[in-house]
């Protein structure tokens, strides 16, 4: 008996050519990934940016801040200037547009200080809440490497720097980047190896403070790329002084801090989601047109009006609440008789979910009756910043 065995013809040339399919380094990384976790991390799915308002699309407070000393300026961002000069900050949107985002923060030197004294510095900073930073797992053996990326267009070329700090501001990691060409958008990409030894908040408090230096005197600067102890360090010893000329502009945008080594596209979570995220730290009631009510309350006795306002979303912590009447007093609409005039705040108390206000007024004899509160300049500010 004869048994014939046959097998299909193999085109060896074709098989070899398949092995030469063009695969980039990230494609091959994806193919080499061992599990779904690793693959998902490489693709970069889900919310990944730990920095709030890194594309500067939310601006609840003001369009411009001048003569900044130490203040929360645009949502998520804090400005500090302890020099003898002065700075102003604005959110700009103009050509040449940066890659990935249309808006950017622009800081201008509006008053010079060419020789910084001991301890003086200028910085822009943001803080990250532990609930968002916990994914980095710093302070554990599972600590992940992080990548900080942003575009910068500074008018003065040279070495710039910044600093990662813990919440107590006594454990620091300085980084550097260079503006190669004046007034040109360039990408900075900084990789920070996961920190395994210190303690990093994972709750609703501040986990990390991230500083960009615009000038720092030697007592608040150090060499980069190492962790070291010391209070309130801001940048590197090679950091140039931004405060030398009133034509100096400092601009950054698309600021992103993400898990992993290497930048991925900027994580644009959309306006409404970013606004809600920002309102976790700051909310403002008013000002509105003089004919629009911003609060409603009722007569509390004959010389006060009080009410409650719901904070949506719930804020990070119990907020500090301020009735701002610096430009104009509140006015009232009364459903019974004439409305009284506003006098002052009797008291305000708050939780993370609402605040209760009680205003002193002129005599109204309308205890228990409803009032509308209006303010075309007056407003109430609730702050739970980091």
């Amino acid at each position, binding site marked *: 008996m004869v048994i014939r065995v046959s097998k299909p013809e193999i085109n060896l040339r074709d098989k070899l050519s398949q092995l030469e399919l063009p695969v980039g380094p990230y494609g091959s990384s994806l193919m080499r990934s061992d599990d779904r976790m690793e693959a998902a991390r490489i693709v970069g799915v889900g919310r990944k940016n730990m920095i709030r308002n890194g594309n500067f699309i939310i601006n609840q407070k003001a369009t411009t801040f001048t003569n900044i000393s130490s203040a929360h300026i645009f949502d998520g961002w804090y400005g500090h200037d302890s020099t003898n000069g002065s700075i102003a900050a604005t959110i700009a949107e103009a050509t040449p547009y940066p890659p990935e985002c249309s808006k950017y923060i622009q800081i201008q030197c509006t008053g010079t200080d060419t020789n910084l004294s001991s301890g003086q510095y200028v910085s822009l900073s943001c803080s990250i809440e532990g609930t968002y930073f916990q994914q980095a797992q710093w302070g554990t053996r599972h600590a992940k490497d992080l990548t900080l990326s942003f575009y910068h267009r500074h008018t003065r070329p040279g070495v710039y720097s910044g600093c990662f700090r813990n919440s107590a501001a006594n454990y620091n990691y300085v980084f550097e980047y260079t503006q190669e060409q004046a007034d040109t958008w360039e990408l900075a990409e900084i990789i920070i190896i996961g920190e395994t030894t210190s303690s990093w908040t994972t709750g*609703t*408090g501040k986990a990390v403070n991230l500083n960009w230096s615009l000038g720092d005197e030697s007592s608040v600067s150090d060499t980069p790329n190492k962790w070291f102890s010391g209070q309130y360090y801001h940048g590197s010893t090679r950091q140039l002084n931004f405060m030398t000329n009133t034509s100096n502009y400092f601009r950054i945008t698309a600021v992103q801090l993400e898990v992993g080594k290497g930048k991925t596209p900027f994580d644009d979570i959309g306006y409404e989601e970013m606004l809600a995220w920002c309102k976790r730290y700051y909310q403002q009631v008013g000002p509105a047109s003089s004919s629009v009510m911003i609060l409603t309350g009722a007569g509390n006795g004959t010389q006060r009006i009080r009410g409650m306002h719901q904070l949506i979303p719930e804020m*990070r*912590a*119990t*907020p*500090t*609440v*301020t*009735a701002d009447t610096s430009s104009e007093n509140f006015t009232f609409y009364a459903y019974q008789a004439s409305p009284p005039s506003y006098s002052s*705040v009797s*008291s*305000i*108390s*708050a939780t993370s979910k609402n605040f209760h206000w009680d205003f002193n007024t002129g005599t109204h004899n309308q205890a228990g009756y409803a009032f509308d509160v209006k303010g075309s300049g007056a407003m109430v500010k609730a*702050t*739970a*910043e*980091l």
Partner: protein
Amino acid sequence: MYKIISENTIKRISDDAFIPKDSANMDYQQFLQDVRTHGVGIVEGVDVETQISYVDARVAEYPPLQEQLDKIYHSGVSAWKTDIKAIKDKYPKTQVGITSVAALPNWVTSIQKTP
């Protein structure tokens, strides 16, 4: 400078901000830091309104009769009347209560000043 408003609220005088006694609030952390640095002298206690008649309030503040007579003897009736009128004006007949400042609560006085 701060003023205690209630058991859970502090007022920052500079901008009339109402700060909650919440350790996660940065303004409360700054309040604690300021008290540690400058001492409790920068904090005023809560306002306390007591129901007291103008008669009782005036009587409590008039000097003893011996002092009043001494005042008349040394400074004359006009000077004595000036002192008495200041107390009468301070507590008018329309008064229904007095506002005074209470002592600081323990949670403030127990904040240790940094040496």
